[in-house]
């Protein structure tokens, strides 16, 4: 393993997806020493996740593939150092980046402090999942999670799969499933994306998106995949035989499906939970790039990564022109059109969520618990929701419940209108869970007595 402590790092890039790779390429071209770390063992992030050895890649549009090939070529030629199985735990009080070298069979995990002059955080997006009874069951996963399986294995997991929620990703995943010879049972979409012809026409401004959308729709049509619009799931239950019983409701009618697997998705949002922001005194120049700054997808992530890499070089005193924000703006406009097309025709009012609906999976806190917390309060503070209610208090650090908790409380009124997800999740390290044994491991951060004290203070 590289001895990071002795490395003179100009720029630490966290995340080996398109934004992080592009930032590293740009910073190397400016002459900076770059270390890129990724929690997994390969580059590409979620969007460009490469197949396991011996597995075939999933279908990808030609422009998408060309973009990845160009980026991966540039990165390989850039001379940026890479450490895999390494995640970013946060910045300590002295501005040192704490990197967790993750455990493997031959080696215990440990946390190493690294001094970098600049840090670009490019940790991507997470999916939004609207809670419904049964979303926490085995066999239910996010659509992105299903897509990761397909990208890694080059195959759809066996059995009948239902896709549900909202957004263009459901269509993209369904299309990949068709291409792999195993279409989904149906797509249950909350919105009515073809109900707004004027918005549809705006896609003409981004012909790339339009072409891709038409190709996907043609493939789904040809495979006769049922797409139910303005329809949403109301419950998922374990069936006696081991499958899942799913109920959904459209406007007026109800339907049931017996499936093996449900993949849920309600859009994406930045994975900015707990990330440090602003400049700590004496700490590195800090910035975010790609989906963790603004979730706009891979095209924008590459452009935004280049911008962040160039900006890091400029902040470190190199005389270079700033980069144009035009490409990111174009992507922002396209994503706004998609967001309007997929604005939900249906949402579940909090009153319709049964008490037993799990809102926070990590701590097993339900809609009933949240109602109990609300009873008798004129205005819940984020602290009360978190410390008394234990919402956003678990090991995912609010990534999969903070939005849903806030949405529920806001729509219940009760003086929670000004509550934001970030009030629940805060800004502190570790930005992802780190084992105590890892923190205290020999040769790690805790070998420096000062850092032991800092860890205990947190």
């Amino acid at each position, binding site marked *: 393993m590289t001895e990071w402590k002795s490395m003179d790092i100009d720029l630490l890039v966290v995340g080996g997806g398109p934004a992080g790779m592009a930032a590293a390429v740009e910073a190397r071209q400016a002459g900076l020493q770059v270390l890129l770390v990724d*929690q*997994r*063992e390969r580059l590409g992030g*979620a969007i460009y996740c490469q197949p*396991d*050895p*011996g*597995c075939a890649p999933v279908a990808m549009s030609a422009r998408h593939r060309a973009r990845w090939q160009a980026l991966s070529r540039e990165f390989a030629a850039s001379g940026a150092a890479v450490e895999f199985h390494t*995640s970013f735990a946060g910045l300590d009080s002295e501005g040192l980046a704490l990197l967790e070298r*993750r*455990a*493997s*069979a031959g080696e*215990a*995990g440990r946390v190493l402090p690294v001094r970098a002059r600049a840090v670009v955080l490019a940790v*991507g997006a*997470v*999916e939004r999942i609207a809670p419904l009874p*049964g979303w*926490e*069951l*085995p*066999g*239910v*996963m*996010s659509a*992105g*999670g*299903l*897509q*990761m*399986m397909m990208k*890694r*294995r080059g195959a759809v*997991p066996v059995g009948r799969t239902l896709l549900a929620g909202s957004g263009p990703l459901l269509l993209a995943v369904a299309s990949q499933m068709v291409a792999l010879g195993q279409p989904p049972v149906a797509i249950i979409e909350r919105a009515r994306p073809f109900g707004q012809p004027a918005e549809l026409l705006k896609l003409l401004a981004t012909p790339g998106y339009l072409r891709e959308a038409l190709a996907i729709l043609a493939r789904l049509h040809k495979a006769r995949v049922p797409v139910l619009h303005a329809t949403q799931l109301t419950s998922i*239950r*374990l069936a006696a035989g081991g499958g899942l019983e799913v109920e959904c409701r459209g406007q007026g009618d109800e339907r049931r499906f017996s499936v093996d697997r449900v993949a849920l998705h309600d859009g994406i949002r930045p*994975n900015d939970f707990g990330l440090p922001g602003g400049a700590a005194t004496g700490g590195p120049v800090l910035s975010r790039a790609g989906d963790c700054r603004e979730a706009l997808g891979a095209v924008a992530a590459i452009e935004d990564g280049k911008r962040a890499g160039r900006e890091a070089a400029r902040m470190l005193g190199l005389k270079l022109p700033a980069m144009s924000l035009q490409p990111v703006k174009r992507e922002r406009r396209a994503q706004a059109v998609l967001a309007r097309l997929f604005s939900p025709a249906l949402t579940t009012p909090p009153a319709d969520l049964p008490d*037993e609906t*799990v809102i926070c*999976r*990590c*701590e*097993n806190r339900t809609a009933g618990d949240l109602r109990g917390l609300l009873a008798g309060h004129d205005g819940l503070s984020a602290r009360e929701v978190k410390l008394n209610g234990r919402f956003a208090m*678990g*090991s*995912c650090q609010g*990534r*999969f419940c903070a939005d849903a908790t806030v949405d529920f409380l806001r729509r219940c009124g009760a003086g929670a209108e000004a509550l934001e997800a970030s009030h629940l999740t805060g800004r502190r390290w570790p930005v*992802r*869970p780190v*084992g105590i*044994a*890892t923190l205290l491991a020999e040769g790690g951060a805790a070998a420096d007595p000062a850092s032991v004290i800092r860890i205990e203070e947190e």
Partner: protein
Amino acid sequence: MSASFFFWRGEKLEFQPGQTVALALEAAGQRDFGPSATGLRQRYFCGIGACQGCLVRIDDTVVEACLRPVEAGIRVEPLVAGPSVDTDGGRHD
């Protein structure tokens, strides 16, 4: 290619090179990864190490099954001890 094995709750399972623990369990038909710390079930969900829903124990270390590649001979155990098959709708509280 000769088959490689790891252990899930003491049971010998096959895996493919590069496969994560989560996908190897999935391929073996195991999608219930045992009880969670709060009475629900551990299972594969987000696939990107964010949701913590697939945490399992390897060599007494808690790891995300979706991030950790399988290595031959490793012993994978549930996050907390408990029944492997869920029979009452997933809730144990």
